[in-house]
């Protein structure tokens, strides 16, 4: 009986979800969601591919002379040399100068000791895409919220709404999860085939992908459905059947979560500083970046709240309007601010790391290529994260702008110059992008630079100067990129803004 009822309810939810699929806004939402989830799946698969690479077969290294040395079963090794080359290969050589011969993979992917770090990096790249997907699921469109409210009005229970919301994303999630493999193959072509030997980031597809594929697809679907169910209760119904968007101030529980994440981060840092060479440190150094990003994302909304409050105190109408809008829903821009804070931190680390290269004294071409390549690759990944964060910003801001079209048009009607409205949006965008990015860059560069100065600088003046220089470069790089991103977002928002400001918007509900 109840089981039959549940099945009926599920079927009804599927029908509702399908019938709204024709709505253009909803189609756009699903396309965006699908793209974001596909990228998540692709990077998860990348992490799997890189992580399982060494397990797939014997590990081979290439000598400087061009011979290939492969580990054999019983602890020995076999050597294959190109014709005309004969090199003395012995155990000692392994401690010397061997290039991993793994289809031209970049050294930090090829060497098993460094590989976990790359896996972590791939996992970190999932974060901005996942947050982007979460954003799309959460906000959806104003039309979707009204639809859910209308369903509510017609007697749907909140369980029904959750079911409908889940049905809306289930198909998209599944397709996106499955599309992860083709997307990964594309990524492999781009990063594992096209780059010159020694710069390739992804190994050729192995059997692990076959097992990983359905697992990742399932993971993506489940995550999307869970997020959608949590986001189903978007508003309340008022007398004329429209939603009143529920204010979502930061709660005590989100404060607790932020506090706990920050605590874990501090604990990890302490562990690392106290015992930099202990067994735990190896794990900590891998987990630390994940915790760092989690802490940044958790702290993002609080940063937005702080910035919003500061705007209110400034008192100019543009600042007040921007501040109020930031405070009205600090979570959505907060997640972007968190990602950009993490981006800033990473830029700060990457830039200061240059000091470390020179401190280690290894400045021959191979080392420079190794470290430089690593830093460049890291900056590339950071840039990708920043771009995705900027896109999240655009989606969120466009949503807010279009949602507020009537009041925006009324604002213009009562005599605000269009430029004023544009400035409000620009202030909003900048406060959640440039400020966190610069803050992160300062903190990141100071932390690592400071470490070098104190622990390894040994009173050398150039280390101090370089650390300061690194802070400046990191701020310029992160701040500039964030400003560029904000400007790009502003450009993309021009159309929705103009639409919101037009008289036509006075005719909308």
């Amino acid at each position: 009986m109840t089981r039959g009822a549940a099945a009926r309810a599920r079927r009804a939810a599927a029908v509702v979800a399908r019938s709204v699929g024709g709505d253009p806004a909803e189609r756009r939402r699903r396309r965006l969601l699908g793209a974001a989830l596909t990228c998540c799946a692709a990077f998860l698969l990348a992490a799997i591919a890189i992580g399982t690479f060494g397990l797939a077969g014997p590990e081979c290294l290439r000598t400087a002379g061009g011979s290939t040395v492969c580990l054999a079963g019983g602890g020995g090794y076999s050597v294959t040399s190109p014709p005309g080359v004969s090199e003395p290969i012995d155990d000692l050589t392994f401690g010397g100068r061997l290039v991993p011969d793994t289809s031209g993979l970049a050294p930090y992917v090829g060497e098993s000791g460094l590989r976990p770090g790359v896996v972590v990096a791939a996992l970190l790249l999932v974060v901005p895409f996942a947050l982007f997907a979460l954003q799309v699921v959460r906000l959806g469109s104003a039309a979707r919220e009204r639809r859910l409210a209308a369903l509510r009005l017609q007697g749907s229970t909140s369980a029904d709404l959750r079911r409908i919301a889940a049905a809306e994303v289930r198909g998209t999630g599944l397709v996106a999860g499955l599309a992860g493999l083709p997307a990964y193959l594309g990524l492999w072509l781009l990063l594992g085939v096209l780059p010159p030997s020694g710069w390739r980031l992804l190994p050729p597809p192995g059997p692990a992908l076959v097992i990983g594929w359905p697992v990742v697809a399932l993971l993506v679907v489940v995550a999307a459905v869970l997020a959608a169910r949590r986001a189903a209760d978007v508003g309340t119904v008022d007398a004329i059947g429209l939603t009143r968007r529920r204010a979502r101030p930061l709660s005590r529980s989100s404060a607790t979560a932020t506090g706990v994440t920050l605590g874990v981060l501090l604990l990890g840092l302490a562990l690392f500083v106290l015992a930099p060479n202990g067994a735990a440190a190896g794990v900590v150094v891998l987990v630390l970046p994940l915790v760092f990003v989690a802490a940044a994302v958790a702290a993002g909304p609080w940063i937005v709240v702080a910035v919003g409050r500061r705007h209110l105190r400034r008192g100019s109408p543009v600042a007040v309007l921007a501040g109020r809008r930031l405070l009205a829903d600090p979570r959505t821009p907060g997640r972007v601010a968190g990602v950009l804070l993490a981006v800033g931190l990473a830029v700060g680390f990457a830039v200061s790391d240059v000091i470390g290269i020179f401190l280690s004294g290894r400045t021959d071409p191979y080392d420079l290529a190794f470290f430089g390549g690593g830093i460049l690759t890291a900056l590339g990944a950071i840039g990708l994260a920043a771009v995705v964060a900027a896109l999240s910003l655009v989606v969120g801001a466009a949503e807010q702008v279009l949602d507020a079209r009537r009041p925006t048009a009324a604002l213009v009607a009562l005599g605000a110059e269009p430029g004023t409205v544009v400035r409000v949006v620009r202030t909003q965008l900048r406060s959640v992008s440039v400020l966190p990015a610069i803050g992160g860059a300062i903190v990141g560069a100071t932390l690592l630079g400071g470490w070098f100065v104190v622990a390894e600088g040994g009173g050398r003046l150039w280390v101090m100067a370089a650390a300061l220089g690194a802070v400046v470069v990191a701020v310029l790089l992160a701040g500039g990129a964030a400003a560029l991103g904000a400007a790009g977002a502003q450009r993309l928002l021009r159309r929705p803004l103009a639409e919101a400001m037009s008289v036509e918007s006075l005719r909308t509900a």
Partner: protein
Amino acid sequence: MTPQSTSGDLPGTPPADHRAAADRVPAGAVLEARGVQHAYRRTVALRGVDLRVDAGEVVAVTGPSGCGKSTLLHAAAGLLVPQAGTVTLLGQDLAGLGEDDRALLRRRQVGIVLQFGQLVPELTAVDNVALPLLLDGRPADGARRLALDWLERCGAEDVAATMPSDMSGGEAQRVAVARALVTGPSVVFADEPTGSLDTLAGRQVLGLLVAAVRERGASLVLVTHDNTVAAKADREVRLVDGTVASEAVLR
């Protein structure tokens, strides 16, 4: 049938003189729209409408749904540039003003009240009412004091610290009226200001608006399809299908 022109023009004056006449607006005219035409993609909304509003006059623009009332109001308030015809608002030819100048004119001398949903959702009632003053660079303290004063006069002091989403329709309209009047406008445009309210609340808001406008000696253009609302005006201009079907002095 002919629109009963209230202007002193002789019939058959060539269009060039029309424009010249618009330039020397008679001292009493707050708004002078002539030959206003506007079409949307497929619909012709206005087919050449004349509308003149004198200082201190309350004019009702009535007509069946879709006859072009809102379009006329938007053109008169400089929110929309009509495809043909001239609009002279407070002595300024709107076609000659840029978007920012029109915004400035509205901010300083024009009040606007719409049917609903015109308050900034993120601001409290006081901040909403103070907004036009703040946008004009007035100091925040004085602006808020004046805003509170107007909220009180409009009987909305109880919701001064309330967000628009937590107000009733009538309260929100009172706040909107306060916001339209706080700058001391010379002319107020109202598009169905009571359209979303029940009769009692509607009558109260309307009474408030008309009384405040009359007290200041300002003008009011009141778009409505409600006869009882129109009966508050000094003059009725009736639009039917984009043309003035009739005009009547009610005073």
